[in-house]
């Protein structure tokens, strides 16, 4: 009988947790394979909120962060979304991956909670939820930029496209391939590797026989760096170009001296952001957490929250529906950590801050095209 009594007790306990302050939710992969990114996002949001509270809050509200670990998978994303809605979150930052974001979108939209994420999959905007906006740029913008660079600038004749099996990489590959085809570029090989594997010499040896000008990789930095270093040690002469998720200091460490000469297409690295505000944020983060910001995605998410704060200040209310309405269309060229924020009516971030950087012999990035 005791067991039966426990259940309502649990329910009561959960009801009590509802807090009094304005709650900002973070839905991010705190554990699992994207753990470093998720923890970075959480840290950055905690830092921003602490700073905002220290400055007296906004419109009389102080903020509190509630974090939920979605492990990057959609099932947990749904639970997280419900948890955060029930915890009274009015704004949610997240999630990191497109899959988890897509799974949670409908729940936040239904509950009238503002959601912003760095996920780049094109289809996140399909439903045009009035509360969702993107704080990074979608795949198509990057695909277009990459294809233009390959076909028109570098004039590559034999292009190899590689990706992994993640939703992100698949989407980006598809977008790059479509854009290259539209520009009549010549793709000689498309293939996939499994993330988590370390040995890609088999596929590289095959590629070697095709004698390509360039190998483009749309997946993440670990495999990217391994591909690059194994490419060099197999004596393949083709250029290596990595998509935006290769933007990570780890790329240089893993590939070591073999990294030099390779290109990266993506947003600027946290350290490359030139605004005073951005440098200050990078320094504050390093000071508080004693480790560098894991990637640019941490900062675009911080931008997402800053956009919400800016909107609150602009319309002098913290009501999520009104704030969301303002963000869709009224945020134009707002200075932020990653440059300027423009959100269109669909919630898509407009503009383009993509750049191509080449790794120099001193293992520093040099922007060669933007």
């Amino acid at each position, binding site marked *: 009988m005791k067991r*039966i009594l426990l259940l309502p007790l649990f329910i009561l306990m959960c009801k009590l947790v509802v807090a009094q302050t304005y709650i900002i939710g973070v839905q991010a992969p705190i554990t699992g394979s994207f753990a470093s990114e998720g923890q970075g996002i959480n840290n950055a949001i905690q830092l921003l909120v602490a700073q905002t509270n220290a400055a007296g809050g906004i419109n009389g509200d102080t903020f509190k962060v509630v974090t939920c670990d979605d492990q990057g998978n*959609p099932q947990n994303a749904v639970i997280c979304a419900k948890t955060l809605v029930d915890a009274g979150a009015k704004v949610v930052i997240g999630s990191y991956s497109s*899959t988890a974001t897509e799974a949670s979108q409908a729940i936040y939209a239904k509950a009238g909670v503002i959601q912003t994420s760095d996920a780049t999959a094109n289809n996140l905007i399909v439903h045009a939820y009035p509360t969702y906006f993107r704080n990074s740029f979608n795949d198509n913008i990057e695909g277009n930029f990459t294809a233009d660079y390959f076909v028109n600038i570098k004039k590559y004749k034999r292009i190899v496209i590689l990706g992994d099996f993640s939703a992100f990489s698949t989407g980006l590959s598809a977008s790059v391939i479509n854009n290259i085809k539209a520009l009549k570029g010549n793709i000689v090989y498309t293939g996939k590797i499994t993330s988590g594997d370390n040995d890609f010499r088999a596929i590289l040896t095959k590629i070697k026989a095709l004698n390509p000008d360039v190998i483009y990789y749309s997946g993440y930095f670990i495999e990217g760096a391994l591909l690059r270093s194994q490419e060099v040690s197999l004596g393949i002469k083709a250029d290596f170009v990595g998509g935006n998720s290769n933007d990570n200091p780890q790329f240089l460490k893993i590939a070591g001296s073999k990294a030099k000469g390779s290109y990266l297409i993506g947003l600027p690295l946290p350290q490359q952001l030139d605004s005073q505000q951005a440098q200050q944020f990078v320094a504050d983060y390093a000071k508080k957490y004693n480790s560098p910001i894991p990637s640019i995605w941490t900062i675009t998410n911080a931008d997402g929250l800053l956009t919400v704060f800016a909107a609150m200040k602009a319309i002098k209310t913290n009501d999520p529906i009104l704030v969301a309405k303002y963000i869709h269309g009224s945020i134009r060229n707002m200075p932020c950590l990653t440059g300027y924020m423009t959100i269109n009516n669909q919630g898509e971030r407009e503009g383009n801050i993509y750049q191509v950087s080449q790794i120099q012999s001193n293992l520093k990035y040099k922007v060669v095209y933007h």
Partner: protein
Amino acid sequence: MQVNKSIFIISLIICSIGFPFLANNIWLSIITTFLIYSALSLSQDLILGKAGIYAMGHAMFFGIGAYTFAILINTYNVNLFIAFMASGIISYCIGLIIIYPIKHLRGDYFLVVSLGLNIIFINIINNDPFGLTGGPNGIFAINFPSVGGLDLTGAKAIYFIALIFLSVMILLFYRLNYSKFGRAIYYLNHDHIAAKSVGIKPSLNKLLSFSLGTMLAGFTGAIYTLQYGAVSPEAFGIEQSILLFAVVIVGGQGSLIGVVAGSFVMFVLPEIFRSYAEYRLLVFGAAMVILMVIRPNGLFPSKFGFFQKRHLQQK
């Protein structure tokens, strides 16, 4: 004893019916997930605990059911009920086709083959064959048609669907011990040489218990799709299969209460400790070790007996 037991069961029924009207959204969703995973774990238990087949790829059949349901509804606009039946039946057929050539493999060799099949399955749905599975993204925002004016996608509706399904499964499993089939797989699992020597057919029963297990997993997959409105490959990977395997052992092989309790421990407790994110899995792993050391036969080891008490009293 008898009276106590009926009081317990009646209050359990009342509680489970009343629960969705008292609980908030998160708990409703967590408990619904728990019901679904309990049913799934029971279907794994039929294969692993009851029939003693070391299958470590059960998430695959869960996935087959979930994808079948999602594809039929999303791409082909099939009637909800037909799609539901189809997800179980297709899962059953695939289970049957798969086990047939490997039914002679024993123990760990079977385990590896089932793991391998699970990896193959994930690879296939990731590659988006015929544009059906949506690749690594999976299938999202499935629009379920309403059935006879009833919206089955509300949290409460799904809760009751899961509850009814689990109840049916519990009834099924409870009566299994008293049936010819249940007894046959018990003998075979316990000592297949002795069982064969009294004329119990090993391969038929192995095929049957495996494919029935996969069919039930297929149905469960459909309910899962109904709850989340989305399917994607991660939910059906080998990590999930390993977890399901562990649930049965942690709960107690072949034990109805044990497996349900095991699902609670493995799927619901982690939700409660979600805020301890980084330490969660560490503690969880340690708990698994401690639990096994303290209770090597699981939380509630199965008590098997296949003659009902009233039969025994008759004579």
